[in-house]
């Protein structure tokens, strides 16, 4: 009985965080910003031929992966630390769609700016209502928590092993309930479980689960998508 209680206490504890090793944090920061910059390059260079577009994305990513203060990740890290694992996965997915389209319709979509990845048809695929709203709400709650406005300490929960297990179970639930038909919808089926599993393996970017799921920039992008969606609905 006491062993069970002790096991449960460990699971619910927020006072024994497993933090990433310094070298893992450093690697995560560089790889994270490399993915973000590569996606930005690929998106902004949508008028370029696909070869040049790939070259631009590769050059930007390589620049971020170099060590030293003359690299963008050194300064982006100064201001914003590392992107979330969710943001990294989204960037990786976006790069694959933009630079290595797998069929004719995807190739056509790849000719559009990166911002279109998250809008219209693609937006519907990436962010079905079930995913956008919880992440948006989570961002607002974490923002309020930062300013100690909430009666609880939400950020500290991000160190709890129980939260990781709970969210992991929740994230695979649609998969289990709907089966392989979800495969046709692309990113959402694997984004959150993958981010959570990556977090469990690496503890990136900070050792706190909330930082792995959502960073402030990604949350701002989600807010922008929401505003655009509402505007389009209003115009229609």
């Amino acid at each position, binding site marked *: 009985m006491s062993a069970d209680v002790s096991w449960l206490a460990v699971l619910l504890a927020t006072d024994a965080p497993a933090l990433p090793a310094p070298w893992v944090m450093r690697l995560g*920061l560089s790889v994270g910003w490399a993915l973000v910059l590569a996606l930005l390059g690929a998106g902004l260079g949508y008028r370029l031929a696909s070869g040049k577009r790939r070259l631009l994305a590769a050059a930007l990513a390589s620049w971020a992966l170099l060590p030293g203060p003359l690299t963008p990740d050194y300064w982006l890290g100064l201001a914003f630390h590392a992107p979330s694992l969710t943001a990294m996965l989204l960037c990786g997915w976006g790069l694959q769609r933009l630079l290595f389209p797998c069929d004719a319709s995807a190739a056509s979509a790849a000719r559009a700016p990166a911002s279109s990845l998250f809008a219209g048809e693609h937006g519907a695929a990436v962010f079905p209502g079930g995913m956008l709203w919880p992440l948006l709400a989570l961002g607002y709650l974490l923002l309020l928590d930062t300013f100690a406005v909430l009666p609880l300490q939400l950020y500290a929960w991000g160190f709890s092993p129980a939260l990781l297990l709970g969210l992991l179970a929740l994230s695979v639930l649609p998969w289990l309930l709907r089966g392989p038909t979800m495969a046709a919808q692309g990113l959402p089926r694997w984004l959150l479980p993958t981010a959570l599993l990556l977090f469990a393996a690496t503890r990136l970017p900070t050792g706190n689960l909330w930082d792995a799921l959502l960073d402030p920039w990604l949350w701002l992008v989600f807010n922008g998508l929401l505003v655009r969606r509402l505007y389009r609905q209003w115009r229609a």
Partner: protein
Amino acid sequence: MPADAKAAHASNLLAMPAGHPAALTAFWFAGDRESAPNVQIAASQFDRATRQWLPARYVVNRHVMGEQLGFGLRRLGNPVAWLDASGRLHLFVVATGWGGWAAARILHLVQSSASNDLAALELMPVRVLPLSWLWNTSFLVRNAPLPLADGGMVLPAHFEIGLKYSVALRFDRAGEFLGMVRLSQRAHMLQPTLLALTPLSWVALMRDTRPDGHITAAQTQDGGAHWTDVPDLALVNPDAAVAALALAPQQMVLAHNSSAHSRDQLDLSASREALHWSPLQALAHGQEGDEFSYPAMTWADDSLWVSYTDQRRSITWQRFAVPAGVRP
């Protein structure tokens, strides 16, 4: 002071173990001015043999630390030192990102050299402590940690962008971060200093940012798991840092600016229960416009040591064998 430093601020004192060549180590930040690009963390040690301070040297440079972390540090600020259970020195330093002090983070450094003698002391970054979701900004340290019986410690810190609230960060005996607890529900209090009345009953005294403020307080009865606000102290506080130290059960001292609207008077007060204080000793009384601020204290070699910022140009120290009215 390092020879090229025109300004110094925010000293911190660390008592060294018996047998160490130095009685204590002092850390502070020094450079052209507060928040100047060339500010570094300076250190000196009080040598037990010569009874002199060793020439100060810089031990933390933001460019060197940035290279090791993989991301830049814009400015350096308050340092706070601690020795873990194995005698390894840890240093917690305020390091800003994009912005001023409100964009600060707490950088955790640990001794990487075999010795923590001043000449040999080298520090390497462990990490920036993960304390908030908003790009991990706006947490700062100022006062010394509260040592715990298990060899760990509680590091007082505060959040200061917009609302100002105090927190306690817990570390284990090896210096591993264990978590954070808020000290107060009020949003105008920063730079807490911690006093243990008993192993489980502690008091936090804090700087008050309100006009005509008083030193504010919170207390816990369960070893820091939960905190409640208590009424402000009778002592005024001109929005200035305070430092408290428990010398023995019911023997506590507090260094604080005692004028309501300036930092030109720095005094030492004594208390038996941390919430009511009586004057003990003047530390520095100057003219209008003078500044004696950011006190730090520690107990070493049967003496109370006090250091503070003197006119933002240097760090001054005083040593009291046994402060009058206090029996350690």
